[in-house]
Structures are given as structure tokens and as C-alpha cells.
């Protein structure tokens, strides 16, 4: 018996020679799996319009990334699956009856402007889905605030009339349609709109289960949390950001509530309503746009939680999650710089200089 020559077959490379199985593709695909129950419930709650909405937004995002890669002459990066997350998230944050052609434009802007122009995965400063949504909010202010009732009759058979608006056309007014399909107790107003403009606070349990009006995927707190628990259990998500955002939002709205319980809603309502839960679990934790330092992630979450409540209670808009997250995205690099961990065996910079 003789040892093999090991030439020319020998593999030479540098240590470490082992690698964990957790790769970008695995992480991204698991985030997609975690969002599927939320998507399923959104379709159940609002009907086939949401199904079309999610398909269009995802396809638009994927195609945009593919085209940008082709135009740049490099291999398509869609197989890392991160763009699918952007597509689904964009769809989940839009009103159920949002015109499909506008959704397609939103997907193009989200990925094109929010991601590819920065250099693709890893280089985007802002969460691409929210860039797309912010664009849509500025471009189509009426359509993006037109909400339809949850659990409308016939929602699996017919589209919400606004969904099928022809390209470059304004959507029709649907007040009459809403009056026709709504079941008692389900109004088209989202809980936050009802609060802002009518001073009506919705019960907690419907918010928790999700049978209320709102953006397609933001209504079911329980399913969003389940997705989050799955991701945290499999170590695909930074729970600290979510915890920090929710705790700070709770503390902030609690402070308002205690100062004047009649003028301000209770903290639990604030926590369960609107896009806070969806944002805290699936968008705030976007790895690319969040800090990496242990202290930084807590600060980052707190910035988003506090800003959300400030915009909701003191600003002109009923909902503040989107701008809160975008703002925190913008300051994330600064947070990172200011919270560099103390390296083992060294003193803090301030101490070292003193």
C-alpha cells in the first residue's frame, strides 16, 4: 500500500476548512417561508385581489433585478432569493385593492432605485420594499389610502374594482361598492385611520387575529409573530431589533397614554394596529440596512419604535412605521460607527485618550 501522490489532485486552500451551512440563500428562502402564512391569510382576508397583488409585486421585483443584472452584464442575482422578499413585502404593505399597474411600478422603483442603483444586495442603504412604498405614497396618495373592508362578500370571486384599473388611469371611486360588499362591523377604515380621524379605538382581539381592514399583510398579529418566532428559532433573524422596536413603541405610547388616557389610545392597541408588527418582524430586521454592533441594534430598534409612535400620535399621518424604518435605515451607519464594541483587552477609546 502506498500513499497517493496527491498531485495534481491536491486541494490547497486557507483555513478555516469548515463552513456552517447557513448561507445567504438559505436565510433568504427561510424568510420567504416565514412570510407565506401571512400571505395566505392576506388572501383569505381580502380575496383574489391580494393574490394578484402579491404575484404582480413579486414578479415585478424579480424581473427588475434580472433586467438590471443583464444590463450591467453580470450574472443574474435573483437566485439568492432576497428580491423575492422585497416583492412579497411590498405587496403586503399595500392596500388590498391597490391598482396592479401601480404595484408593478412600485416593484420597479423598489428594486431599481432602492437596491440595484446602490449596487445590489448588500449595498442598499434603505429597505428596498419601503423605498418602493414611499414612492407609491408620494405618487399615488389617493390610491394608497383607499382601504377596503376585510372579509368582504364575494372576495374570492371578484376583484376589488380598483385592482384592475387600466395602466396610467386613476382608479374608480368605490364608496358604493364598499357599501355593497361590507359585512356588518367591517368598515373600510383601518384601525389607525379610525383612531386618527374618528377617535375610535378598535378592540384588541380582532387586531390580534387579523380580521380588520388595513394593508394586505399587516393585519394578523399572530401570524406575523409566528413567522418571527420561526425565524428566531432557526437563527435567521435578529430578535433584538424586533424586541427593541416593540418595547420602545410600547414605552413611548404608554407614556402618552398615562399623560392623558382620554386623548391617546392604550399601548396594546398601538402595538397591534397598523404595520408596526409587520415592520418590526420583517422589515426592521432587514440585515442589510440594520447595524451590526450589539449595542447598535438596540438603539436602531428604539429609534424606529419611538419615531413610529411620534408620527402616529403627533404627525399628520395615521401610520408612521414606514417613515420610521426608512429614517432609522438612514442613521444606521452612524449608529454602527458610534457603537463599535470594545475589543477584548483594550480600553474604550474615550478612556484610552483620557
Amino acid at each position, binding site marked *: 500500500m502506498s*500513499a497517493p501522490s*496527491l498531485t495534481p489532485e491536491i*486541494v490547497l486552500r486557507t483555513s478555516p476548512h469548515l*463552513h*456552517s451551512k447557513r*448561507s445567504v440563500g438559505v436565510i433568504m428562502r427561510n424568510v420567504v417561508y416565514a412570510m407565506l402564512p401571512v400571505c395566505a391569510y392576506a388572501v383569505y382576508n381580502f380575496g383574489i385581489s391580494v393574490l394578484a397583488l402579491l404575484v404582480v409585486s413579486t414578479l415585478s421585483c424579480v424581473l427588475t433585478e434580472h433586467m438590471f443584472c443583464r444590463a450591467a452584464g453580470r450574472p443574474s442575482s435573483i437566485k439568492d432569493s432576497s428580491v423575492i422578499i422585497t416583492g412579497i413585502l411590498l405587496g403586503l404593505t399595500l392596500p388590498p385593492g391597490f391598482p396592479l399597474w401601480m404595484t408593478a411600478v412600485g416593484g420597479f422603483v423598489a428594486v431599481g432605485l432602492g437596491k440595484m442603483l446602490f449596487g445590489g*444586495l448588500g449595498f442598499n442603504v434603505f429597505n428596498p420594499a419601503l423605498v418602493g412604498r414611499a414612492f407609491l405614497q408620494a405618487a399615488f396618495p389617493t390610491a394608497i389610502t383607499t382601504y377596503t373592508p376585510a372579509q368582504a362578500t364575494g372576495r374570492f370571486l371578484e376583484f376589488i374594482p380598483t385592482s384592475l384599473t387600466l395602466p396610467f388611469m386613476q382608479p374608480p371611486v368605490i364608496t358604493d361598492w364598499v357599501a355593497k360588499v361590507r359585512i356588518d362591523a367591517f368598515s373600510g377604515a383601518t384601525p389607525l385611520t379610525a383612531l386618527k380621524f374618528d377617535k375610535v379605538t378598535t378592540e384588541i382581539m380582532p387586531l390580534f387575529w387579523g380580521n380588520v381592514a388595513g394593508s394586505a399583510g399587516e393585519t394578523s398579529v399572530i401570524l406575523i409573530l409566528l413567522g418571527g418566532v420561526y425565524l428566531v428559532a432557526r437563527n435567521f433573524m435578529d430578535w433584538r431589533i424586533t424586541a427593541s422596536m416593540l418595547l420602545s413603541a410600547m414605552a413611548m405610547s404608554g407614556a402618552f397614554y398615562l399623560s392623558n388616557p382620554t386623548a391617546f389610545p392604550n399601548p396594546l392597541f398601538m402595538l397591534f394596529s397598523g404595520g408596526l408588527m409587520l415592520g418590526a418582524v420583517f422589515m426592521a430586521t432587514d440585515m442589510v*440596512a440594520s447595524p451590526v454592533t450589539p449595542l447598535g441594534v438596540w438603539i436602531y430598534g428604539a429609534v424606529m419604535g419611538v419615531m413610529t409612535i411620534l408620527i402616529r400620535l403627533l404627525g399628520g399621518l395615521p401610520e408612521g412605521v414606514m417613515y420610521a424604518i426608512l429614517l432609522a435605515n438612514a442613521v444606521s451607519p452612524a449608529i454602527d460607527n458610534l457603537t463599535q464594541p470594545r*475589543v477584548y*483587552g483594550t480600553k474604550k477609546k474615550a478612556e484610552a485618550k483620557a
Partner: protein
Amino acid sequence: MSLLSIFGGKRLQRGVHVPEFKEQTSQLPIRRMPFPPTMIIPLSQHAGAPAVAIVREGQEVVRGEPIAKSNGFVSVPMHAPATGRIERIALAPSARGELAPAIYLTPWPSASQEILYGAPQDIEHMTPEEIVKAVQETGVVGLGGAAFPTHVKMKVPEGKKVDIVMVNGCECEPYLTTDHRVMVEQPDEVLHGARIAMKAIGASKIIVGVEDNKPDAIENLRKAAAAYPYIAVESVPAQYPQGAEKMLIHVLLGREVPSGGLPSDVGVAVFNVATLAQIGDLLPRHQGLIERVVTFAGPALKKPGNYLAALGTPLRFALEQAGCTDEAAGVILGGPMMGPAISSLDMPLTKGVTGVLVLTRKDLESRNGDILPCIRCGACVDVCPLHLNPSRMGMLARKERYEEMETDFHLMDCFECGCCSYVCPSHIPLVQHFRIAKQMNRERKARERAKSNA
């Protein structure tokens, strides 16, 4: 004491759980490997100045006879691993890839191979200085892989006080089981070596740290330590890279070795268990280090095991003995997290080789994956045992901002444990980036020095 050690017991908070792969060899007793037809003894098997050969070509030597002397304090002598004839003193391949001077020795098949050198010495009545000198004469260096001359660690620098001798039995690298077997089979030698070190250093306490995946080692050491009230054997939860001395000091004592400093700065001297076992065995007889236990492991070996191999055994011969198959695609010296892959089987086993891993193509390809941009997931920041920021340093390395990595992000503290590369979901070769950055910085400084001297 760190806050966490109060709540969570003594454990390494950072680092990674790597698959251990130790079951292949952990229960295999130490066996002797036959002598090869030719031994190659490099003159530089340790950190510090290479030894100086004191034999001629053609000279006959006896097993255990000194064949090279130390060159200065940070240097150790070499001893003949077998009775035989010095063939030549010439260049031989080394793990670093370059050729280095070595003594070629042909063992005599008919010799008794009795170790005739050395005489008993009474350690009890030796002064610390005499012990340090005697340890240097054994040629023992750190057998955990660093190969730093052991006697240097036993000489406490002026103005420092070392009160604790720490015995490192973590062996946190996957596959390796040499320290494990030494602890199981030679616990008395390990503790004897530790007591010698304690006497030389003037310490008052011995702490043995062993990872809890080696319960039989812990049990045997505790039995052996029962007679000594100043020896504590601590079991710590397995976590890579706990065996790095700075990590183990922090886990067991909560003391933090300053950046750029040594364990003696915090009153500790750390020794590997196999090193101490050799000292405990060799010093009373005043003999030299001529063999060591090496783990041969990996899926491409038919006869893996823990072999007591003569120093200077060429790898090609050693792999034949361990039943290397044609599936072998890569050979790694040491553990898979930090060990270098080697390019030549004509290099010999040296004092610092803890193990030889022979991996198949499939094993090596488990690390394959497209290198994607950093997605700033922060996994590397969470695992870095030194609390460095590998993510940021990796981005700086891409832009070749090597100087900034050193001045602002403590590049030089990185000891290349590999945790960041191991967890990176984008498969960024972070450790390799850092190695290159360190080298570039060294070269830049050398250029600057040359310029200022000119």
C-alpha cells in the same frame, strides 16, 4: 469576574459550535508508529531562533542524543529521534511551503533503540533558574500547535508576578484528540509537569481547564489531582475557540489579557497538557523531546488514530501507516479551523504538529459557495471572541484600506481563529483578508523603515 460568568457559569460566550468529528479517534489508545526509513529533523520547529546543528554528515548518533543546540534564550535544542546515521544536512520542505535546513537521519534497523542519554535529576532541590535551563535542554515547546519554547514561559519577566499555572486541556479544534488521549492515559505526567512549572514560576495554584466533551479525561485528572489541594480541575462547556489561551484565561478567571500583551500581564502562565506531560516525563530523567502524539483523522484514512510518532517522520510514510486512501484530496496540519493545508508530503512531522487531517474532495467542497457581498447580518460580529468587527474590516480590506483596519479596528489582535469565516453566509474569506492585510501592513512598515534609514 465578568457579569456573565455569574449568571451562566464559566463558559465562552462568543465563538461557534463546530461539529466535533472527534468520535473517530477519541477512544483509540495511543499507539506507536514504526520508524520511517529516513527521518527529517528541521532545525526550526519552534518559534524563535533555529537550532544549530552539532553533528557532521556521516556521524553515528544514539537515540536521545542532542544533534542541534539552542541558539540563544528563545530557542531549543534537537535530539536524535532514533539511533542511526546522519545522512546529510540539507534543505527540506516545511509547512509554510518554503525550504528550510534540516538534519536527515537514517535509523539503524538492528539497533536496540534504547534511550541511553540523560541521567536522573532531583527537581525538588533545583532552583527556578535551574529548572528553566533544564526545560530548555529537553527541547520541549508548546505541543498545542504554537511551538513556542516552554522554558521561556516559565521565566517570569522582571517586575511581574504570576500566581496561577493554567493547564489547557480544551482541545476545541474538531477532529483532534491527542490532548484528550494524553489526559486519559497520562494524567500523572500532566500534573507532574504542571507542578514543575509551578515551582519554576513561583505560582501558588494550578487550574486545569478541560472541555466537557472529554468526561473520561476530567475524571482521570480529578483522580490524579485529589492528592494536591492547590490543583483544581475545571470542566467548561465545549465551544470553539476556548482553547486559545486568552479565551481560557477569561473563561476560568475573568481576567482580560491586554491587547498586545501576554498572559503574564494578568498573572497567568498557560501550558498545553501534552507539553506538561512531556516535561513531567522527560525532566526527571533529563532527556530530550524525540516523539509526540499526533492524531491522524479524516474520512480518507482507513486506520485513523492517535499515534506516538518519532519527530521527523515524513508525512508520506505516516499516511501510509494510517491507511490513506485514494479519496484523499487535501492534507491539513492541525485542526480544520486554523490548520494550514500543505502542498508536499515530503515534509516531516515536527514538534508543533497536533494532528494530520486527510479530507476528501467532498469535505473540502462543503466550504464552497459563491462569494456574495456582505449582507451585514452581523453573524461575524456576534461570534468574534475578541469583539472585533470582522464585517467592517472585511469591507475595508476589499477597498485595500489596510492601515485603517489596524489603527481603527484592532486588526493585529485577530488571532485568526476562523469563526467569522465559518459563519459568514456570504462565504467571504474574512480570515484570509485579514492575513493579507497584516502582511501588507508589515511590508508597508518595513518599506517606511527602510526609507527613514536611507
